[in-house]
């Protein structure tokens, strides 16, 4: 399957059988749970648990863009703020934006810019807020995946959902969806985000060391995984918005029985010729 010759002896992120520290194989995702519509005030929201990551996303808008000089007379701005809670990492993170979160906010904003029908809402802003509550590597992918569901929950018109995932290299093996230890001690990480319906890559970053072949392997793992995550995103939205017959009946009681007689059926043939039931019966009797 993969060469596992140059694994550092002291730290085996993946063993001879191709099993990782958390028991996953190279092409396995961590468990992912997605919930849509989890906040009251936001226009749209979503919550994602992805391995040890816990991420909330909220969407406001389209609403008046602030500061006003940023307004675009032709389209809506898509502005994302990615933020990590001080308690989301083992050493407390100083609150507020640092350089890393400014960069992540920028690339996530850009990832959504071509997907939202921004030209329908001139001078406005679609504001996306991502809060990382608990971090375990891959927070930008989890945040973007959550934000995408939150945008749909807010009813913001989009060409498609955006789905994100990362692949990297640990112990010389290209693996899907690195966790914190794998990210810290691994050799490379390559987060991406895709528009699943068209295959457009709207976010792509990489750091570490990958040969061109390894990069292609990583991308193929990520692309395959995003199809599965896409299904989970859609499922979260379906669970939020599709009601069972019982629920519909509970919310709106059945219509009262009609008291009046149905009006007589028109004999005029409009589209499909109406069946003459009497004639049908006669035919059957005649044939018997």
């Amino acid at each position, binding site marked *: 399957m993969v060469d596992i010759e140059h694994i550092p002896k002291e730290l085996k992120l993946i063993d001879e059988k191709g099993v990782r520290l958390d028991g996953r194989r190279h092409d396995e995702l961590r468990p992912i749970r997605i919930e849509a519509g989890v906040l009251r005030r936001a226009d749209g929201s979503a919550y994602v648990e992805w391995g040890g990551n816990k991420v909330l996303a909220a969407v406001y808008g389209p609403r008046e863009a602030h500061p006003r000089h940023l307004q675009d007379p032709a389209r809506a701005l898509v502005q994302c703020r990615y933020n990590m809670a001080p308690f989301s990492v083992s*050493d407390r993170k100083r609150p507020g934006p640092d*350089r*890393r979160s*400014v*960069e992540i*906010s*920028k*690339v996530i904003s*850009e990832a959504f*810019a*071509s997907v939202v029908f921004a030209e329908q809402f001139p001078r406005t802003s679609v504001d996306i807020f991502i809060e990382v509550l608990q971090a375990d590597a891959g927070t930008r992918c989890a945040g973007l995946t959550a934000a995408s569901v939150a945008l749909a929950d807010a009813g913001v018109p989009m060409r498609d959902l955006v789905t994100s995932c990362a692949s990297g290299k640990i112990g010389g093996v290209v693996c899907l969806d690195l966790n914190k230890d794998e990210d810290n001690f691994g050799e490379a990480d*390559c987060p991406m985000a895709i*528009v699943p319906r068209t*295959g*457009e*890559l*709207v*976010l*792509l*970053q*990489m*750091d*570490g*060391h*990958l*040969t*061109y072949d390894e*990069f*292609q392997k990583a*991308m193929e793992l990520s*692309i395959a995984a995003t199809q599965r995550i896409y299904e989970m995103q859609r499922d979260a939205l379906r669970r939020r918005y599709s009601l069972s017959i019982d629920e519909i009946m509970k919310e709106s009681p059945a219509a009262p029985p009609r008291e009046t007689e149905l009006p007589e059926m028109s004999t005029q043939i409009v589209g499909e010729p109406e069946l003459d039931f009497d004639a049908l019966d006669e035919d059957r009797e005649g044939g018997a």
Partner: protein
Amino acid sequence: MSDDILSDLMRDYVYRSAKAGRRTDGRALDEPRKLAVEHGVVKTAEGSARVKLGNTDVIVGIKMSVGQPYPDTPNTGVLSTTVELIPMASPTFEAGPPRPDAIELARVVDRGIRESKMVNVAKLCITPKEKVWVMFIDIHVLDFDGNLFDASSYGAAAALATTIVPAKAQGLGDDFPLPVEHWPVSVTTAKIKDLLVVDPGLDEERMADARLTVTTDENGDIRAMQKGLKGSFSYDEVKRIIETSQKVGRALRPSLRP
């Protein structure tokens, strides 16, 4: 990088020229602008370089100081990269704290140098857990005519290559050159509609839909990547861009060495 307006007439001209295979400045689609590197231009810095990529002009200074290592890397030197987009360089740059585009630029340059292990930071430890050398890469953009990602990366690499660690002044033995071991080259490609152009000039950059920076090492291996702008790439386009970046990187690498 800038939000200023480009006329439709110019957009059309830029696109049609590129579509015909010859860009507005006469280049082929996969041809970078002329790179001129001048090493050691600032005496007060421990290392410096001035890089002109076409008319984009960047000066980079390296300052070395003794500081504390990060707790999770107690035996390695520290690298810190900042970019100043000073108002002198473009009518669209404003004074004030760095904006997201300057932060992204600095972090992408930093990533290329850090991830390629260009400088062997293990050799910059003085006392484990206590004292290490800290490298400050300060990138000063003097004239912005497109593609700051590559110009800044080349400037940083060229400046690091000339850096002398001032150990004597700190009472830490003799001065020594910075242990530079690898040569990353960043190559940025812009997507204009259906076309991919290497090393975009200002007008090309202003109308680009998407941008991809790929940093490769001397083996052609990928060390860092960053996609930018609001558009997207197909996976096939990404593969083509990587192949071009490897080729252009090989050609440019020799001119970065002092």
